[in-house]
């Protein structure tokens, strides 16, 4: 008797749970994977934004590479645009593989787009490990680019941003979660790499710096590289210096930098950067003998000091803080008004850069 009751309870639970299906179950071939999301300012329209979704179209056979389509819609908000785009395709749109978010340059320069940025973070199915970039001239142009080496749509951008593919000091990739944090956190401002569409390839070598709501400053490739040194992101790089008539390049194997904020009483506050560089001579216009490497090291140190300091000052002058000095200051000071204090300190703070260069060899056997 008791077991009969148990069985019927079990049966009811099983049958009941079968009714619960339907919402979650959707086969992989009934989904359309969005690989990149692009947002531009709408042109010649009453609507505000132009949203593009790049959808991967999987191919059945191994011979054909995977194709893609771009579906666009103009709307005043992201939610609207995505809902309308759903009516244009036959399968369910799946954002779980949208690993690239492109913000058109014009849009980035405009104020009041926080809605879009937070929409990305609010959506459960957009992964926070997606990369956010600024697209130049427009997001659509970048989405349309199809490099020859690409087998899967947008894969070349994924590879360029991630460390899987190319390793270069000119790209400072930023994840969505980090972007969101930088948008909110006081004392740390967003920075996004700029992807420029060329005919059949991309060019990613400049960086855009944001204040809390729009793009404010663009760093050129050399400045991007310097910022890279300061953030300890990529070790493989190259720096050049001049000694007399000799112009030479150092291929770096190791770059380490750290800084400390000093606020001595009665004296102006300053930030001291210590940068350690190790590398070999990669190219030179004249012969550099092994015995005189120390002198060349000095030249590199001088050059780097000057160059890094210029970049820091340039960023400081525009009043933004991508390295996070403000956050560091706030984390070391516990008074109530630390943020207000920092805002007073930052515009007039002095940078001191101390570089130590070690050239291990000339790259040649003498």
């Amino acid at each position, binding site marked *: 008797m008791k077991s009969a009751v148990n069985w019927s309870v079990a049966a009811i639970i099983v049958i009941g749970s079968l009714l619960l*299906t339907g919402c*979650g179950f959707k*086969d*992989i071939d009934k989904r359309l*994977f969005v690989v990149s999301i692009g947002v531009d300012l709408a042109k010649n329209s009453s609507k505000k934004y132009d949203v593009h979704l790049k959808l*991967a179209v999987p191919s059945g056979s191994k011979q054909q590479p995977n194709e893609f389509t771009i579906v666009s819609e103009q709307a005043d908000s992201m939610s609207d645009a995505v809902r309308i785009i759903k009516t244009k395709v036959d399968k369910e749109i799946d954002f779980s593989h949208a690993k690239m978010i492109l913000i058109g340059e014009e849009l980035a320069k405009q104020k009041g787009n926080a809605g879009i940025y937070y929409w990305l973070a609010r959506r459960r199915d957009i*992964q926070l490990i997606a990369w956010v970039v600024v697209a130049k001239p427009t997001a659509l142009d970048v989405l349309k680019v199809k490099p020859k080496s690409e*087998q899967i749509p947008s894969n070349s951008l994924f590879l360029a941003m991630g460390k899987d593919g190319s390793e270069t000091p000119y790209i400072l990739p930023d994840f969505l979660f980090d972007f969101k944090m930088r948008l909110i956190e006081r004392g740390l401002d967003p920075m996004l790499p700029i992807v420029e569409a060329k005919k059949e390839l991309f060019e990613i070598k400049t960086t855009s710096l944001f204040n809390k709501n729009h793009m404010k400053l663009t760093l050129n490739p050399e400045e991007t590289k310097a910022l890279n040194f300061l953030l300890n992101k990529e070790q493989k790089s190259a720096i050049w210096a001049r000694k007399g008539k000799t112009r030479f390049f150092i291929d770096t194997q190791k770059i380490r930098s750290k800084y400390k904020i000093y606020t001595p009483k009665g004296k102006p506050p300053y930030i001291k950067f210590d940068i350690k560089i190790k590398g070999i001579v990669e190219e030179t216009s004249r012969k550099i003998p092994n015995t005189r490497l120390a002198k060349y090291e000095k030249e590199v140190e001088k050059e780097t000091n000057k160059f890094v300091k210029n970049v820091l000052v340039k960023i400081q002058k525009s009043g933004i803080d991508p390295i996070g000095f403000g956050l560091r200051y706030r984390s070391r000071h516990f008074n109530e008004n630390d943020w207000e204090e920092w805002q007073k300190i930052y515009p007039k703070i002095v940078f001191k850069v101390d570089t130590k260069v070690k050239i291990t060899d000339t790259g040649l056997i003498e």
Partner: protein
Amino acid sequence: MPTTKVESIKKSIMNKIQKAEDVVFKENFTKEKYLETYYIKSISDEQVLGKYVLKPFFEIQGAELFLDYLQSHPKISTFKTEAQTVESLLRGEAVLFYQDYIFLFDCKVDRNNAVQDTTVETTIQGPQSGFSESLPTNLGLIRHRYPEATLKVESSQVGAISKTKVMLLYDTRFADMDTLGRIKEFLANVKINMFQTGEQLLDSIKKSNRSLFPVMLVTERPDRVAINLSTGKIILLIHGSPFAVVLPTSMKDFMASMADIYQTYWVGRFLQTLRYIGLFVSIVLPGLYVATTSYNPEIYRVQLALSIAGSRNLVPYPSFVEVLLMLFMMEMLTEASIRLPKAIGPTATTVGGLILGQAATEAGLVSNIMIIIVSTVAISNFVVPINAFSFSVRIVKYIVLGLATVFGLVGVGIGFLLFIAYMVKLDSFGQPFLTLIQTKPNKK
């Protein structure tokens, strides 16, 4: 001349045994002696009888001398009860009527005592021979490998009709007396008419609690038996079966191959790890496929997600139907290749595995990835060294698959948890089933 009492016993015994061609009653005379022998020639060894009874009968002169001979011969025992005599007779002993005495002479034919090669639990290295079908030979094989004075052998019978002789072997130093008691109790209560082999016990113990997994290990390897004796296990030998039953059994025993101790340390460890991974894969993989393709495709990398989506493009059915279809095909194939004679076996594998698999993808019935998954599941299932356990594991994957179909990835987790919880609940004669690190026997 025999007295009336002996005469009446003789009559009654002969009445109980049905007349047959192989039932022999023979009278032997010399000048001063008279001996009657009564035996069944198909199960008794007439040569032995001739050598130890008839030849001395004609050679020894005095009647008293021959009686002394009979009484002192180790193979000859005296009459106890009528019922016991009948039973011994049916087991191949000869009944001797001499003067006022009745003797039983042990001249059983020991058939099927050839030692067989291992076919079920094969190893690359180590001993290659298994048990024979003869109980004394098997006992001998074990004693040979386990020469310890503490080895105790107890005999009993199982089976209402078959009256199969069963031997209980254990090392008195190591065996747990509590477990031994439970096993004896179990054997006394087993209700089987025809008891032929140890595997039947698996079934009869299941009837008491419907266990999904076997809680006793049936093995054909004397070396495994010897090792288990030394860890305090109790061994059951059954007359007429080349398999021994090892009790109590934990899950770890089912995952152990004898090859483990015949390999170097790291190789053994590696193989064992491989087996556990295989077990995990064969349980979880079909469910995982359904859960990830239909609920959480974000788990894959983009490249894989697109290639799975591409290969599933032509498949008309949802993923769980696809998996069930392929698994069903695989189970059929496995069953077929067991049943088929060895000569056609490979044909079935070729037809099933290669042609069906290839054609199924070509026809768009299943995706390419599915074929890989099904074959991985099949192969990793065969990695489990003990067959009885690997059969049980085959069932578990359907439970996980069902839960995955309904609940997605959570279902896979729940399914695996249920699997572990169930094994924790099981016990084998009072010993916990899921002990990855074996508890030391003889706690006190």
